Every structure is written in C-alpha cells, then in structure tokens.
C-alpha cells in the first residue's frame, strides 16, 4: 500500500467540533471557487466584467459631451452604464445558476452534508460584489481619465460605495428567480425582468410622461437617483434620500425573505 493510502487507513473518526477558523475557511473556499467558476463560464465571467466598461467607452466615443455640459449631463450616462454593469452579475449569478443548482440537487446535497447555512448563497453574493467592484472602479477611472465626469475623491468613494451596496436589490431579484423557476426558464425569466428595468427606470433617457410613474416600481430608479446625488449631480428624490434607501432595503429584504422561504419549502 502506498503512503497516502496508509495514511487514510490509519485515521480514525475524530471530533465533529470545528474552530471558527475552519468555519470561516468554508465560506472563503465557497466564495473562491464560485468566483473561479464564474470566470471560467464563457457566458458569465468576461461578458460581465468587460461589457459594461466596453459599452461605456463606446458611448463616450460616439457621443462626446460639449464643454458646457452640466454635472448632471456628465453623470447621466455614467450612472446608467454603471447600474447596468452591477445588475447583471447579481441577477444572473443568482437567477439562472442558482435555479440549476436547486433543480438538479446540488443544494440538496450540500444541505444533507455539512455545509453551513447560507455559505453557498453568501459565496454568490461575494462574487456579485467582486464583479460590481471591478466594474465600478474601472468605470470611474475610465470616466475620470476621459474627462467624462469630474468627481472629487470623497465623491468618487461615495459614488462607488453607493453603487456597491446597490448590488443587493439585484441579488435579491436573482435570488427570487433562482428559488422559484426551473433551470430551463431561469435565464429567460431573468432577461425578461432585467431588460424592462433598464428602460422603465429611466436610466438612459427620460421616460415619456405618460408612463414615467412606472419608474416608481423599478429599483434601478431609486439607486440611480442616489448615485447621482452622491456624485453631486442633479437628481430627483421621492421625499428624500432616506426614502430611497428604505425602499431599496425593504425591497431587498422582502424579496430575499420570500425566496428563502420558497427554497426552504422546496428542500
């Protein structure tokens, strides 16, 4: 018998206690391999890292702003493209991929084995945050270097953090889709939910007055106004900024709670 096999044979059943370090390591490993996996997925990794910045650069090139452009005009395209960039990883990472894992037994296996509660979902959330952070930093740097926006450093940090926290509602939407739909339908359903939000929330152009009220039901609208305010640009708060934060937080919590219940019933 070789040395490794001998080592296997000598071991006995030990304690089932795990140290805090070992528990934290589980969360780290889950997140690490979720990220590696996403990068290797040709339909997820590079498209979500490159597409938002690429599109932003393309639009900047195609539609240069006049020198007299106001901060609001300067920020408008930037915030729209940045929010588009952070929506994708949150919604698709949770939606389509989670639906497959749920339907084809991976979550059931992990629940039967000793995965700590929530480690799998937390890993997906971390991956969405990483993708969002890369997108946000790349877009702020590109926009500053190309003179598209002119933020002070504190403003840039505040814009970045607002966008980063803004990932949460989109993770919740993806979670809700992934917890309910079949693997075959999840990608389509995510797209159906994703695309109208881009339009109806007025991210890229003002909405016609007759349907502008629909923006009130679109999370990107609330986030967009918060980011514009953080960047010192003209914005439109419903009430004030706290109302927007409360709306987004409530939306995120309710949707996540509902999805978690649905998953618990499904298991």
């Amino acid at each position: 018998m070789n040395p490794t096999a001998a080592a296997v044979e000598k071991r006995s059943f030990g304690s089932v206690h795990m140290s805090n370090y070992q528990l934290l390591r589980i969360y780290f490993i889950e997140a690490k391999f979720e990220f590696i996996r996403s990068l290797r997925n040709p339909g997820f990794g590079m498209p979500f890292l490159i597409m938002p910045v690429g599109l932003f650069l393309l639009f900047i090139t195609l539609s240069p702003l006049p020198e007299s452009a106001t901060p609001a005009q300067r920020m408008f395209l930037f915030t729209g493209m940045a929010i588009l960039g952070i929506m994708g990883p949150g919604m698709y990472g949770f939606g389509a991929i989670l639906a497959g894992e749920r339907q084809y037994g991976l979550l059931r296996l992990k629940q039967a084995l000793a995965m700590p509660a929530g480690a799998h979902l937390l890993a997906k959330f971390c991956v969405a945050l990483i993708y969002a952070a890369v997108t946000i930093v790349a877009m702020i740097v590109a926009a500053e270097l190309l003179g598209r926006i002119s933020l002070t450093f504190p403003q840039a940090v505040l814009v970045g953090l607002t966008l980063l926290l803004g990932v949460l509602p989109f993770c919740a939407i993806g979670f809700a889709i992934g917890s309910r739909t079949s693997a075959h339908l999840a990608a389509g359903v995510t797209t159906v939910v994703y695309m109208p939000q881009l339009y109806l929330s007025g991210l890229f152009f003002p909405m016609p007055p007759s349907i502008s009220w629909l923006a009130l039901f679109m999370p990107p609208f609330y986030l967009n106004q918060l980011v514009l305010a953080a960047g010192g640009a003209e914005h439109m708060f419903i009430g004030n900024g706290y109302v927007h934060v409360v709306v987004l937080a409530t939306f995120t919590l309710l949707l996540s709670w509902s999805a978690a219940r649905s998953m618990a019933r499904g298991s």
Partner: protein
Amino acid sequence: MASEDLVEIKDVYKSFGDTRALDGFDMTVRSGELLALLGENGAGKTTAISLMLGLEPADAGQIHLFGERPGSMDVRRRIGVMFQDVFLAPELLVHEHLTIFSSYYPNGYSADEILEFTHTTALRNRKYGVLSGGQKRQVQFAIALCGRPQLLFLDEPTVGLDVQARKDLWATLRQLIQQGCSILLTTHYLEEAEALADRIVVLAKGRVVSSGTVKEVTQTISTRRITCVSQLTPEEVTTWPGVSTAVVEDGKLVLAVAHTELETTVRRLLAADSTLVDLQVSQAGLADAFLKITKESRQ
C-alpha cells in the same frame, strides 16, 4: 438506544398528499455494517433516506442518528451522502470540487488523499463537465467520503460504472467497513446487495416486508431455484402451482419454486419437455427472494 445502532427509526409515517410513502417504517443501522435497503420503484426508499438526512420532516414516528435528530450539524459532520444524480459545477476541476466538500468537515481528507483512496487520481485535473457519466459517479462517490464519514448513505452508487470501476468501488466499500464505517446502500443490482450487505431490508408500500442477513431473507421464502435448458416458455410454467417466478436468463429457463412443490415441478418439467437438459436445483438467491417478497406485498 443500543450503543451500536447509529440509526434508529421507529414507526415512521410520511405522506405526500394522498400518497403514503412510509407507513409505519422501522429500521436500524448498526455500527460497522453494510445495510442494503431494497425495494421496487416507489417503495419509499428515497423518502426514507430524505427523512434520515433531515431533508424532510416525518409526519409521525421517531428518527435518530447517533442519538440526535436528523439534519443537526453534529450529525451532518459524521455522514457522507451520494445521491442518484446531482449537478456539480461543470467548470470546476475534480480536485477543486473535493476541496470544497472536504472543507465542510473538521477532519476531512485532502483532495489527493480521497482521490487515491477511491482510485480516481487520474481524474484530478479534469473539468467535471467533460467527464463521462460513470466518471461523474466516481467523483460523487469520492465527495461522499470527503468527511471521513462514520455513516455513509449511497443511493444507487454503481449505476453507469464500468466493470473495473464497480469492482474498485466495491473494494473501497469493503475497506470502509473494515475501518468501522457503516453504510446504508440502496441498489437495484441485487447481486451487489448479495455480495456486499451484512443485512438486507426489503421495503414495499412504505413498510418493511422482510429483513435479515442475505441467508435469512432467502431462507424465509422456502424457495428453490430450478435452472434448465428447455423449449418451455416462462408464460407456460409461471401458472403452475408453486412457481412464483419464471424468467429466461442467458438462454436458460429459471424458475423460483416453493420448497414443497419442488419435486412435483421437476417431474412436470421433464414430462412437458422431453428435450429438457442441464437441469439444476439450488437454494434461491436474493433476486428470487426479492421478487417473491415484493410480489406477495403487491397482492
């Protein structure tokens, strides 16, 4: 609870809507034994395993694993599980999957250790998505062993495996038993249960209809097995008194016959077919016993 019983199930009931999946189910799994849970499709095997793993609550009855409730973290860190089929990320390499699952346990094997133990080192650096069905099953088996389990749940572990892989898996199971691991195996390959199991539990309509060692289960049915080369068809002989099953295997007519009707049946066979040759009579095997037991439970 007796100290050597890792699993104790008492009078458990579980229904899905109007369908009763488990109907007063009792079972124990003892330390260091391989128990084969057998039953036709829909007998309740999968439900029983789901309850033992804490994935479903029982409607009534008691289930204890290691003296604790199913699904508690202490229990989950002592068990390994291999389901019939499961989706794993196709983008990850085999050793990466094993690293993830090993991390769940306080004393889990390293990826390389478990690959060596399960004779799958050749798969180490291959993406899971490009593996054949049999290779995926081998990886799933390795995952089940990652945490050095005291109790292993294996649901149809050898489906899709080639002969060598099946032989390797059987060898690993025997090694695990020697190390003191207990195994609960469900399988449709009765020769697998016959070769590996210390005890058999046959489930039908959510109830245990037979249990014991392979020898005890086969003896309880008082059945003998007649094998011969004959022109008679299974349809012709299956209606004879005492014949519980009749099939053709490898060109031979195989009958399971009640012990009391053995002599009469042999005489009748010889009378009905003058060309009959290669007549053999033996104690019925597990397959015959299983067929007879499940047939009786349907009636």
